[in-house]
């Protein structure tokens, strides 16, 4: 039953491991970068605000694949020898950062202004207001879209194969080009991605329901 798939499974699972590590790095570092940028965007500095707005606008308007190609070719252009894996990974981190920055910024702005007025009227300074009032509430608002963004990022790691990075999708295409067992392999790979992504998807849906609280 499904001889090609079972035969190639060890090879594909190695690819899956690469996909998992790449996803973890991209989601982790991309989210950190994005949250930092999002908070930066809400400070009083107009320069910071414009920078982040521009960053978000440009990166959201371009396909992630183009950003990956840019990353892949940019390092050699500066004379740096970086592995394809690292170059494309970094590119994707920059990309995810833009989306997370927008999510963070919206979440912070969604905290009702009245609460900030109340905190200020108690004599709280900006740092305390941010850590005690804004971020705890913004975090709750941001979690569902952040989980969705993570889900998207995991799927987008597959695009790295187009730029020449070896991971699950690259491995799958290799096997299919050799064996022509397209249905077995690609459906099998879809199943593997499904197993990786579905928990994230469920978490996103659960969080949307649970974390919506009425003020």
């Amino acid at each position: 039953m499904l001889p090609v798939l079972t035969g190639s499974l060890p090879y594909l699972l190695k690819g899956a491991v690469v996909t998992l590590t790449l996803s973890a790095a991209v989601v982790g570092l991309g989210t950190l970068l994005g949250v930092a940028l999002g908070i930066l965007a809400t400070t009083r500095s107009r320069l910071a605000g414009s920078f982040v707005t521009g960053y978000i606008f440009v990166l959201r308007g371009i396909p992630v694949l183009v950003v990956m190609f840019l990353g892949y070719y940019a390092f050699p252009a500066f004379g740096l020898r970086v592995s394809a894996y690292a170059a494309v990974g970094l590119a994707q981190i920059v990309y995810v950062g833009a989306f997370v920055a927008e999510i963070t910024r919206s979440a912070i702005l969604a905290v009702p202004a009245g609460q900030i007025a109340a905190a200020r009227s108690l004599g709280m300074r900006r740092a305390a207001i941010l850590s005690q009032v804004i971020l705890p509430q913004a975090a709750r608002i941001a979690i569902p879209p952040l989980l969705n963004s993570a889900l998207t990022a995991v799927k987008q790691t597959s695009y790295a194969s187009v730029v020449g990075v070896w991971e699950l999708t690259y491995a799958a295409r290799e096997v299919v080009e050799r064996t022509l067992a397209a249905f077995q392999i690609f459906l099998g790979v879809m199943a593997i991605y499904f197993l990786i992504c579905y928990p994230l998807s469920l978490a996103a849906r659960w969080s949307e329901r649970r974390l919506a609280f009425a003020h």
Partner: protein
Amino acid sequence: MDYAAQTAVFLLAQFPKLSAGFLITLALSVATIPLALALGLVLLAPRMAKSALARGATMGYVDLMRNTPLLVQIYLIYFGLPVLGFFPSEFSCGVAGIALQHGAFLVETYRAGIEAVSDRQREAARALGMGRLKALRLVILPQALMRILGPLGNQLIVLIKDTSLVSAIGVMELTMTGKVIIERSAASAEIFVAVGLFYLVLTSVVGAAFRLVEHRVAERM
């Protein structure tokens, strides 16, 4: 400054090729968007049906599309159909793959728009004596349409960006063009900056167009 001038000259020379690729990207988008919109509509009825089987099947399809990468879906179509004896063009494979995925997302967008129209509106319509179908047509759908415009615009912009994936199966759209240029000439990363600019202009125009329509519709209401 010599570098800047050199790069500018080079990029300008590539403009015709990039424009050709851009046109293919446009063609992909124009071909895919109606198909995706239609697929979403077709799936809407079973998605909101009373029958748990219909709903379950549709939700299963949506979940499958949501949790697997579009690239793999495109590969499945491109590599799989020949095995069955069909030999569609790369362009068609790309269109099919993208339409199948985005149709699934659009079902959810449509559904959210309809459900967002408050129940009170439904009650009000019924209280005025409208039957279910009339209420749907005159009260619910117009409001749902207005709510949909924002998410719909965003979704279509994602679709346009996703057309870049068909470069993986050899369609000479904008991204593939950039890749070919860089492989055939001594060009460097700058070519992808130009590619990015083309996409940026396209997505910005589409985004602005949607915001304009949203504004006009909101004014009318």
